[in-house]
């Protein structure tokens, strides 16, 4: 009887592990502005924002999507390309982090940054950024995408539309 109970519990745990594939750990947001979604899809409704450098707790994985919990306790799905396993160190002024490998940390604002861009623009007055800045304001919302797909009778495959 005891053996049977143990076998059942063990089986249940194994089955559960297979379904959810819990994937706990910590990752960092590596994009300027990220969005958490209610489902593992870009057409999933937006739960809330996450910002560059924020550490999120990973709960589970489905394909290229991770369900995470933000420092503000928001829970939602985000595409893996928005995250890095490295720790993004913001405002890394002060001590040099030369001991840390690039596999562990990414120093925000280091290397090619706004200062380098400013210097580059000063050296190259003929290179005009007006349109580049304007391009960055051209943003399409989730709702616009959904109606664009609907209107065009486009049916994304692999359950993209949720």
């Amino acid at each position, binding site marked *: 009887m005891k053996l*049977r109970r143990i*076998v059942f519990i063990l*089986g249940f745990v*194994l*089955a559960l*592990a*297979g379904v959810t*594939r819990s994937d706990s750990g910590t990752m960092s947001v*590596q*994009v*300027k502005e990220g969005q958490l979604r209610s489902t*593992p*899809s*870009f057409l999933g409704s937006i739960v809330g924002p996450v910002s*560059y450098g924020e550490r999120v707790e990973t709960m589970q994985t489905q*394909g*290229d999507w991770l369900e995470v919990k933000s420092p503000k306790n928001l829970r939602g799905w985000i595409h893996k*390309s928005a*995250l*890095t396993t*490295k720790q993004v160190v913001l405002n890394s*002024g002060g*001590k*040099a982090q*030369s001991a840390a*490998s*690039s596999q562990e940390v*990414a*120093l925000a604002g*280091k*290397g*090619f*940054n706004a*200062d*380098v861009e400013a*210097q*580059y623009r000063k*050296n190259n007055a003929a*290179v*005009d950024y007006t*349109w*580049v800045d304007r*391009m*960055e304001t*051209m*943003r*399409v919302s989730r709702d*616009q*995408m959904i109606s*664009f*797909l609907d*209107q*065009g009778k*486009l*049916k*994304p*495959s*692999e*359950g*993209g539309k949720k």
Partner: protein
Amino acid sequence: MRLSKESSIASLVFFCALLSVLCFCMCERPGWAGFSDIVGGVTDNVLPGQAGSAVKAAVALGKSFQDITPEQEYYIGRAVAANVVSTYPPSPNDRFDLYLNTLGQTLAEASDRPETFGGYHFLLLDSSEINAFAAPGGLILVTRGMVRLCKTEDDLAAVLAHEISHVQGQHGLKSIKNSRLTTAFTIIGSEAAKSYGPAPLSKLTEVFQGSITDITSTLMKSGYSRDLEREADKGAVTILRRVGYDPGALIIMLTEMKKQLKPGGLDFAKTHPDPKDRIEDIRPLVGSGPSATPVSPERRKRFDAAMTNL
């Protein structure tokens, strides 16, 4: 008897558990993501097959283009795009740019790399040349000549999907000379302050300038290798299929380009392999049958409306 009953229940439970694990592993591909094995997706800035060597090689703050953070890629992309628009001025057309960005950003979401530091943005250039450029990080520029070559929304989607795949594969960054990156990573590794002093800032800007030249001359003069173009074409087929466009539109566009381009010409002909070779490369992926999805009247109508006065 009792023992054998228990052991048979036990085997059943284990079998079920094993099945669920297997089933999960095989079925997990939600959303638009997937097929990254085919196109070679980007995982934490490390490309498949190169992860091992990257781990071994990384001792300072980076070594190759894969160690360029998305934030730095963003600044590189801005400068590259600024250089392209300084050579090919934009064609101010709010209505078309809105259409272009709605189509382009929807396609980008279906790529293996939907998230870049600053996102994907698209712009029409005022040039009759047949050309398109993808700056690192997702700033994509298309000439009026190229857009006019498209007869349907699916054709334009094929052009944009190809450019998105160049961004996804970080092909622009690959053209930066390694010696420049070594210099940059040395400065990044040794300089403490977030804002650099005059000497390191000047050195970094010099490396930045050189990197931008490497990329823009690849985009506008020499072109990518046939391998990278093939990778971008394959990626485009995947994106088109995921969104619901006809992947055959890529073949239609390449055929059209073959007709229009003059060998030795200055535009696409100069920077891209012969369209005939590219068609041969992707034909097996697309299939030779008729279009999978007929273009709906609604899609045709909005495409024609966007093309008015272009």
